[in-house]
């Protein structure tokens, strides 16, 4: 009887061990992370292009007031001349630079008066592809994996959020004069130029 019980116990133990090791449960968000493992080192890539390529193209960005004038005069021509788009659609990205007087420091942005235009410098929601795509430096079809391509924007934005924004926000106040370089996203079918939002790549309090 005892031998039978031992035999059954061992059998149940073996089946249990086999069963335990053949099935596993994993949360979907873990599966998401696993399914999109990125071998491409976006941070290293962004660090590599930051000074010599990315900053360089933004140094040559059009003046934002002149760009707005061009857009008001001939939207299609301005999109063709100054805009960058990855594919098909209404969205275009533009490099810009300018200088303006701080009129408000809000939780999510800083408002600048640039000539007759109010410009919103984004300091909270620095996400998306504006900086990457307006630069014209990075092409989708150079990357087999879309996740690699998207991770470039994530690294650029993270660098801006960590290295540029905190210092700027700790110093900026109403009445300051601020110089900026950055990118904007515009929709040519629904163009709104009343309060353009700039994702900054450089910010400098000049006075």
């Amino acid at each position, binding site marked *: 009887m005892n031998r039978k019980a031992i035999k059954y116990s061992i059998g149940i133990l073996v089946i249990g061990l086999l069963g335990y090791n053949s099935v596993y449960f994993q949360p979907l968000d873990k*599966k998401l992370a696993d399914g999109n493992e990125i071998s491409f080192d976006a941070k290293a890539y962004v660090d590599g292009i930051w000074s010599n390529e990315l900053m360089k193209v933004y140094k040559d960005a059009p003046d934002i007031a002149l760009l707005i004038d061009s857009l008001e005069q001939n939207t299609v021509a301005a999109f063709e001349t100054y805009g960058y788009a990855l594919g098909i*659609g209404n969205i275009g990205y533009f490099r810009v630079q300018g200088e303006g007087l701080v009129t408000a420091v809000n939780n999510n942005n800083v408002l600048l008066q640039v000539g007759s235009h109010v410009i919103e410098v984004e300091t909270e929601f620095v*996400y*998306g*592809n504006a900086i990457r795509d307006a630069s014209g430096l990075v092409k989708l079809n150079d990357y087999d994996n*879309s996740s690699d391509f998207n991770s470039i924007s994530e690294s650029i934005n993270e660098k801006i959020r960590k290295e540029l924004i905190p210092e700027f926000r700790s110093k900026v106040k109403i009445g300051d004069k601020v110089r900026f370089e950055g990118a904007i996203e515009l929709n040519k079918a629904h163009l709104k130029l009343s309060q353009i939002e700039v994702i900054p790549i450089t910010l400098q309090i000049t006075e």
Partner: protein
Amino acid sequence: MTNFNPLRMLCFFAVALILNSCGGPDERALNQPKKVAVIVSTLNNPWFVVLAETAADRATELGYVATIFDSQNNTALETDHFENAVSSGYDAILFNPTDADGSIANVRIAKQKGVPVFCMDREINATDAATSQILSDSYAGCVAIGKYFVEKLNKKGKYVEILGLVGDNNTWSRSKGFHSVVDHYPELQMVAQQNADFDRNKAMEVMESILQVHPDIKGVFCGNDAMAMGAYQALVSSGKADQVMVFGFDGASDVINSIRDKKILATGMQFPKLIARTAAEYALSYFDGKRDFAQKVPVTVEMVNQENVMDYQAYGSK
């Protein structure tokens, strides 16, 4: 009469018959319109019906014979459609895949026979199989929705994510775009993340179950509009429609109407008609001899919310 020779006449007809049989098919092929197959993942979702019908209509406008095949979200059935299309002499395939990995073999079936395949909206995980892939920029669209989500929930609260088909890249591109923003806000807590296969009824069931465990959620992000409508229906049934913000993705007509009626907060407007027309026109370019297509052609996604919904209509801009 003396010139009539039955043997010579017989030879003449025989030669004529041989010549006719040699030149005939090419001539017929030249005279017949090109055939284009539109193979779509499912016709059980209005968004894909618009995609398929627009592709077929544009192909017909361009002078082709177009036929729509419904894969019913089944990769094996999709294989049958590809084999059928190739053996039936279709000249191009406008394709909406069922599975990013599982559909690659089907595209290769066509490629081996020299039939070009233009993917629409959904991606396959290979860059050497399809002639071109015209894809919604789901990631960027969901980054915009993620920003809006954080603003509307005021950076804090419990929320739920309902995912689409686990095997579709769009599911993860949308989720990744959304989380690339939302995950930076630690007071926004995702209490459940479940898939509902882009299906309205499944999303309703999933949402009903989640609400029993987490009645205090503030928001739900859904990977497509059908699931957003299902989730909203569950919220109405439980009397929580006014306290939970629903966000979708697609730009389908019922969600655009619901945004107008202030029932749903926002969606990502994809442009299925633009994608479908572009695919049909790429087929035309291919028939005209073009071969240097970009492998991936992104189509921008625009966020539609309660502030700008008047600028949009279902499946596109006004």
